[in-house]
């Protein structure tokens, strides 16, 4: 049993100019757990996830990845931004999947997956391609290895992006609304890959509007509104026994939209 949480967030604050977007977030993600973050648009879900990867530098608080502080160095109470090299090193265990896939359009599906294997992990071409093909097959796009992203459906592109992240053997995967840009009929294939991943014991933080996925797959659901965590707990409590008015309202709005 690994005692230390894979991701630990303490008192996180983030401003964009005058806007106070994260107002003291605490979060712990233990190994092999799936945490889903839900909440209305603009509540700060993406900003939280991006801060947890230091894509958006946070202002106050701390993010620890496997016990290592991400983004800053602290020496006698003062903190300074860490070097790129150290930041890369701390976040090398994080795999991230974005709403808009962010594949590189001038590289094939396989080229997208092998790039970091070759450059960062310094693998030879054959070894990188072996892993690349294996990863693409794992997410069900093995036959698309030599296609460019523009030839793939949205669902295939997103699965390729998942394969690209998985190839680096991350210890935790972040997903920021991975299915929100997809046509409805393609959502299922991506969620299924994510569910399989969770079944294999991958530690995951998933920002999503897919309440069905959160209800089935999450170990913990975190409801955010206005830059704060309003309520958190097992999916059954969150979806069936919401305590706060804001969560009830959010769930009612969501139900009325989907019916």
């Amino acid at each position, binding site marked *: 049993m690994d005692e230390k949480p894979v991701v630990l967030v303490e008192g996180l604050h983030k401003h964009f100019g005058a806007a106070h977007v994260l107002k003291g977030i605490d979060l712990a993600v233990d190994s092999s757990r799936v945490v889903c973050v839900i909440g209305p648009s603009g509540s700060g879900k993406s900003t939280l996830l991006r801060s947890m990867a230091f894509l958006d530098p946070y202002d106050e608080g701390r993010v620890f990845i496997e016990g290592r502080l991400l983004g800053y160095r602290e020496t006698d109470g003062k903190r300074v931004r860490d070097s790129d090299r150290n930041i890369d090193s701390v976040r090398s265990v*994080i795999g991230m999947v974005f709403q808009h896939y962010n594949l*590189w*359009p001038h590289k094939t599906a396989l080229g997208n997956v092998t*790039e970091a294997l070759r450059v960062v992990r310094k693998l030879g071409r054959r070894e990188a391609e072996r892993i690349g093909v294996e990863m693409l097959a794992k997410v069900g796009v093995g036959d698309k290895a030599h296609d*460019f992203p523009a030839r793939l459906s949205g669902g295939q592109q997103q699965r390729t992006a998942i394969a690209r992240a998985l190839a680096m053997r991350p210890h935790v995967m972040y997903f920021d609304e991975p299915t929100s840009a997809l046509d409805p009929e393609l959502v299922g294939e991506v969620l299924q890959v994510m569910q399989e991943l969770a079944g294999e014991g991958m530690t995951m933080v998933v920002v999503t509007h897919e309440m069905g996925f959160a209800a089935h797959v999450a170990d913990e659901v975190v409801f955010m509104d206005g830059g704060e965590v309003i309520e958190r707990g097992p999916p059954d409590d969150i979806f069936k026994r919401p305590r706060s008015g804001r969560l009830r309202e959010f769930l009612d709005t969501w139900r009325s939209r989907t019916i």
Partner: protein
Amino acid sequence: MDFLGIISNHHNAFLAGATMTAVVSAVSIALGMVLGLWLAFGLISPNRLIRRASAVYRSAWRGTPILVQLLIVFYLLPEIGLDVPPVAAAIIALTMNTAAFQAEIFRGGLLTIPPGQVEAARMLGLGVLHIRVRILVPQMLRLVLPALVNETISILKNSSLISVIAVTELMRTSQQVVSVTYRPLETYMIAAVVYLAMNLVLARAGAWFERRQAPAAAR
């Protein structure tokens, strides 16, 4: 009108002049591309100082006439102890000029690439230089190819100005031919046709590249 007479007597001089024009232009465009790429990343740098410095360079070289730039470089180099032949001064001036224009073209191209592609690369641990060289520049060059061809054509035409610092390219060659034939109209028309021919080849090559690249992007 005696075009054939002029051509048959001076075709070697025209050929040498055209070659000089082509070489000076090609070298300036190529060196200007390297400088222009650095400058373009400077123009979009998160560091304000780098951004400012790049913008000042860009504005200075875009905002003054090439002829003035050429003469300043030509007379400045000996002053700072660099005794280089006129052709080197010409290449330096044209390079620094086209770098400013190319930087602006590249900047525009870079801004169309979704920043998410860079974020994905950063999360995979790819370094900034690698991201620029292997992810941003290849996509950007495809996008800006037509503008780059325009800039190349423009440098090729503007290279006629370097005749004033005694580089024997096509324009100066024509002046020399005029001084022995006393046939300015025919001679300069021949020069015009040679410039036009070189630029048509460039435009064709650009169109060919574009056709070749188009399927790759949409593949």
